[in-house]
């Protein structure tokens, strides 16, 4: 009888579909002062100080004119990011000047002949055990803030692979690996660890960014000397 009961037990359990067979990373996640582990990138010799200075100038323009930030800067926001995991995609929304990211659970990227490159690129995702692997291409190297933590910058040829993994219910590790034959000597990897925001946290409107605010423009001007 015990054997029959065990079999019955097993049948009842296994016949019931599980509501969630992969982890759920939905939530509001934020970075703290100690959330980043970023080594120095190994850059190609062609990435000279002059090249980096031009990139810095480009990014300063994007910030000054409130352009969409794009990756990687959107993921390094001072505000919580909102990750919502559905069945076919994950959307990551930002409380800053950045368009939402869409991470599609599909096997391939769209035809790049007709894909308009963006500041976030095109992302496809899959689960490998408890790790979400996200593969992104299709960046527009001329838009948004392109500098990458640790050195280097995003171009239209950049390839980003991210690994999202819940270390526990309150800690989300995101490891980013950038590859770009024009920029990096070797793939450049760094890790951010996001802390889950309090359960009743509510999404806030982004901080205002007015490109026509003259005081703000003066503050951001390269010739600004600081002070009151």
């Amino acid at each position, binding site marked *: *009888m015990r054997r029959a*009961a065990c079999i019955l037990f097993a049948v*009842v359990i296994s016949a019931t579909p599980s*509501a969630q067979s992969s982890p*759920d990373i939905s939530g509001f996640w934020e970075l703290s002062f100690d959330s980043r582990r970023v080594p120095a990138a190994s850059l190609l010799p062609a990435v000279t100080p002059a090249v980096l200075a031009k990139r810095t100038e480009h990014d300063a323009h994007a910030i000054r004119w409130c352009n969409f930030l794009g990756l990687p800067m959107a993921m390094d926001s001072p505000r919580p990011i909102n990750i*919502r995991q559905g069945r076919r995609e994950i959307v990551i929304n930002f409380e800053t000047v950045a368009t939402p990211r869409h991470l599609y659970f599909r096997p391939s990227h769209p035809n790049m002949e007709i894909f308009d490159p*963006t500041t976030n690129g095109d992302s496809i995702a899959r689960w490998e055990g408890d790790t979400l692997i996200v593969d992104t291409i299709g960046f527009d190297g001329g838009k948004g803030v392109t500098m990458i933590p640790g050195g280097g910058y995003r171009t239209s040829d950049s390839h980003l692979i991210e690994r999202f993994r819940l270390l526990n219910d309150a800690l989300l590790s995101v490891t980013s690996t950038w590859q770009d034959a024009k920029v990096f000597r070797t793939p450049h990897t760094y890790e951010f660890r996001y802390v889950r925001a309090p359960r009743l946290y509510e999404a806030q409107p982004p901080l205002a960014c007015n*490109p026509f605010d003259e005081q703000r423009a003066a503050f951001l001007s390269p010739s600004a000397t600081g002070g009151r």
Partner: protein
Amino acid sequence: MENSNCKSCETPSNRAFAFCILHFALHAKPPILGVLLLLTLATTLAAQRQSAAPAPGTAAVPDLEGGWVRIDIDGSGSFNGLAAKFPRAVLTPAAQAAVAEQGKRAAQPRFDFARDPSKPRPAGEGYVVTDGNCSLPGGVEPNSAAFHVVQSRDQVLIVRENPGLPRTIYMDGRAHPDLSRLTPTAVGHSTGRYDAGTLVVETIGLAQGNVTAGGWRTPETRLTERYRVSSDGRRLTTTYTWEDAKIYVKPHTYQIVAERTPPGSWAFESWCDSSDPSQRLSIVPPAQKE
């Protein structure tokens, strides 16, 4: 019941508790007690597996996930005419005055081309039609851009392909905050629930302004939306109902229909750069050949 050592009974987790019960059940005397315990454990665990939010696409929960584009079911002739056939709002006198005042402000010509249409621009000189600011407040209704819905366990998120605030719909049973603690925005504060295959969303805290088909709203106005997907999954019909005793003589209701984007499509980015002079321009009359 035989008293057995059960080390796992000391651990607080559900899994350990289940193993504890299993252990007692397998060693229980009489055996029938063990059978009953096993059956109870099995059904309890089964219920827990299903107690997460029901999956979208069931009878209880519509499958809203993905991209949608509003469609013009009435044949409006132009974007400005999309709401022409919607039933007009029936307003209180005070609300009528507010709408009229807003209409006067909106009618003020902001750019010089609109002030004197008798003077066409020469070739190469563009018509300046905006101030070039890229930010848009967003809103509760779709415009011509696609919008994307993702349904997670305790939140439904709607993001547009135009710049603007997302719609964050809290599904965890929380109440709206008191209005005194809300900053009104173009999307307000939304809570939602599933009701027999329909997503029902309640919103307050919207910034004061116009509502489609002659309506008006303040942060106290309540908007109820009902999202329903057609049986083939390709059409989404949203019914909007505005209620506010200070504004509406009766609830103001209309519907907007959207179609699902094709499988395999992706979200677009609506790039904008305020530093680009062309951001302000509409038509630039071309030079003509002699």
